[in-house]
């Protein structure tokens, strides 16, 4: 099982760093339903391996999708402090997290405390969280906008500046830089098409 130590992943992340490709990596931080099956575990099953892989590629911009949570991976006890630890560590300055997916939004709007804890983490690291929907083939506008609307309690809790960064500006910074670097790489590695 499992794969964060597979050199194939290192090759991918090295290449992304060389080209300037932004990376969106999905990796559950824990085994499914860990709360039920791994009571008392010191930390989520994959946390140390994830940290190791993020640290091995400091030149690569990596967005850790869903802050490592998922359908069967609820935030473990004190999880946001562990995320806080990563985002505070200069060795992880290449790392961002996204709060996409309706199942993830559910965790953070389940109670006022959960929303406030997330807002506090964001306000400590306003440049490092990105909003995303994780929409998949939506059938209409209301379906597409549902995750953004689901986070309404968060948007009300955040200070205006952090909210703007999470909703808009962090995306622009990460992806503007990616566009610029990838186009630059292509100039040197792809036969030029078109002129003037």
């Amino acid at each position, binding site marked *: *099982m*499992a*794969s*964060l*130590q*597979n050199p*194939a*992943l290192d*090759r*991918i992340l090295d*290449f*992304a760093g060389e080209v300037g*490709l*932004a*990376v*969106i*990596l*999905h*990796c*559950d931080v824990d085994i*499914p339903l860990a709360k039920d099956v791994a009571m008392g575990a010191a930390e989520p099953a994959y946390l140390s391996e994830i940290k190791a892989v993020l640290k091995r590629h400091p030149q690569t911009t990596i*967005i850790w*999708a869903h802050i490592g949570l*998922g359908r069967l991976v609820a935030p473990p006890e004190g999880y946001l402090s562990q995320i806080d630890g990563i985002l505070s560590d200069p060795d992880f300055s290449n790392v961002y997290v*996204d709060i*996409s997916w309706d199942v993830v939004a559910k965790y953070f709007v389940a109670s006022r405390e959960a929303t406030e804890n997330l807002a506090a983490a964001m306000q400590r690291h306003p440049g490092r969280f990105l*909003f*995303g*929907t*994780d*929409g*998949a*083939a*939506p*059938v*209409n*506008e209301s*379906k*597409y*906008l549902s995750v*953004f609307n689901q986070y309404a309690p968060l948007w009300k809790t955040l200070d205006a500046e952090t909210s703007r960064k999470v*909703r*808009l500006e*962090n*995306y*622009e910074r*990460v*992806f503007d830089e*990616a*566009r*610029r670097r*990838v*186009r630059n790489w*292509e*100039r040197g*590695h792809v036969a030029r*098409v*078109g*002129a*003037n």
Partner: protein
Amino acid sequence: MRQFHSFRLDTVNHCLWRGESREVLTPKAFDVLRYLVEHAERLVTQEELLEALWPETYVNPEVIKKYILGIRKVLGDRHENPEFIRTFPRRGYQFIAPVSAVGAAESSALSVSAAKQLTIGESALERLGGNIGKALMSRQQCDADDRGFDCVRVRARRKPGMQAATMIGSLLANWREARCAAAMVFLLFVGVAEALPQNNDPEFNDSHFHLTNNIQEGPDIREFLKMMGNRAGRVAIFGIPLQQEWSYRVDGDRAPTYYLHSDAPLYYYSFTDAWIAMAYRSLTKEQRARFDPMITGFNPADMYAVDHIRRVLRTFPGVFSGIGEFTIHKEFVSAKIPAKWRACRIRR
């Protein structure tokens, strides 16, 4: 909308205002100015400008000089003692004037004022519509001695996001209470204002979006643009690399569309990247600017995965911004990938 000295850079309507008059700038000159303003207070190299504004195209760097010259002329700037753009010979340019952001309400008022200027002119409006134009511009109720316009004027206070159709409906409902000629002029006015792009700043950019599902179906990208409307600005867009197999042996006639709908395995479906690239390329330049396509159709446990990524970049230059979403551990997904393809743990 950005302001510097008496100028406003209207990034929604792509124009430059000095006070209330519109300055003439070619679209490319506008892009150059905008790029410099948005990266004010740092040196922007010629190479960076070329990469940002002429991707995929070879352009003689001398061209930038020409645009800078044109912009300086419009701004009334001087090369030797610049107020706006400082030149660093052979290196690049820096926008040096203090830049501030202007609020949406203020800038929206400006587009309405622009509409007024472009259509019937202030004096005509004043004559025909009394205070309607002013009310529209300021969104504040004006004092008026002409009681006949009260109703129209109140309706004319357009709220952000209110559609012209709604306003026209209100006006028509009050048609009898308004003077016919003035109301007609007003409708024309609203129509023109509506034809201009509205300054509705997006509420969010979406860093994580799959245009397709587990069987590579999804909306046409233009349909999706409609769903984004004004609320979503930019979207990191990708397919789903893991295709759900429809195994007749497992599911019979029940066609699964989601990874949780079937016990049949998932497999890597690289064509999803070509699909996304072609969808992106089918868009206009302005529409493309709203997307950051991502490469995702590779098996992250395969030492050859980087070759796929490189191949996609070379096949579709100018398209992709990143890679992902790709998955290492994910509840049932990991178990549904046949064991021989699964990334296995290697102790080093």
